[in-house]
């Protein structure tokens, strides 16, 4: 079956530092990945996506890196702010329609 997992269930960083959240996937056929942010009491919110034909994509303060060789992707948040505190999920799509498989999430806490 599919497997999307995260290396670290919790992460604490000082405000202003950079954060790196990791995600491993097992299906080499996965061709599309999305990072979501979920704040307490809310539904997940799209952050950034990347296709399997890319190895890096940058957004505003966020960068996603994809290493297909080891089936690993990461989300980097620059100058982490208190508002970044949330649970972050990676999700993979293996191309069969729009069904995505979500990991268990990493809880990021930003220390002021």
């Amino acid at each position: 079956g599919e497997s999307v997992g995260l290396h670290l269930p919790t992460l604490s960083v000082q405000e202003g530092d950079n954060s790196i959240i990791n995600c491993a996937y097992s299906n080499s056929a996965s061709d599309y990945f999305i990072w979501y942010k979920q704040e307490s009491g809310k539904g997940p919110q799209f952050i950034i996506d990347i296709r399997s034909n890319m190895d890096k994509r940058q957004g505003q303060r966020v960068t996603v890196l994809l290493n297909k060789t080891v089936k690993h992707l990461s989300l980097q948040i620059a100058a982490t702010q208190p508002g970044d505190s949330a649970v972050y999920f990676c999700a993979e799509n293996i191309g069969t329609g729009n069904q995505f498989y979500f990991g268990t999430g990493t809880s990021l806490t930003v220390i002021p």
Partner: protein
Amino acid sequence: GAGVSQSPSNKVTEKGKDVELRCDPISGHTALYWYRQSLGQGLEFLIYFQGNSAPDKSGLPSDRFSAERTGGSVSTLTIQRTQQEDSAVYLCASSLVSSVEQFFGPGTRLTVL
């Protein structure tokens, strides 16, 4: 503009009762998804609707779970004879057919006593 809305926001029910959860997707979004999120867990795919196509029900955990989408808009997730293990947050998301970006609602927190 209006996002995805879900109702009720919270539902407490007794074991064995049936419940209905409602999702109003973003207008114009033809794709609609239901997920279940247990405490401290990731999202578990339940069912996917796309336009008039037959829904993808591959994620429904048992025959006690069913969902409908009337008129290509509002969707209802029904859980019959609820069990305590059904307690979770049920999330609905919608998207344009041309996009994989899903917009999520706030969820319905279901508690089965």
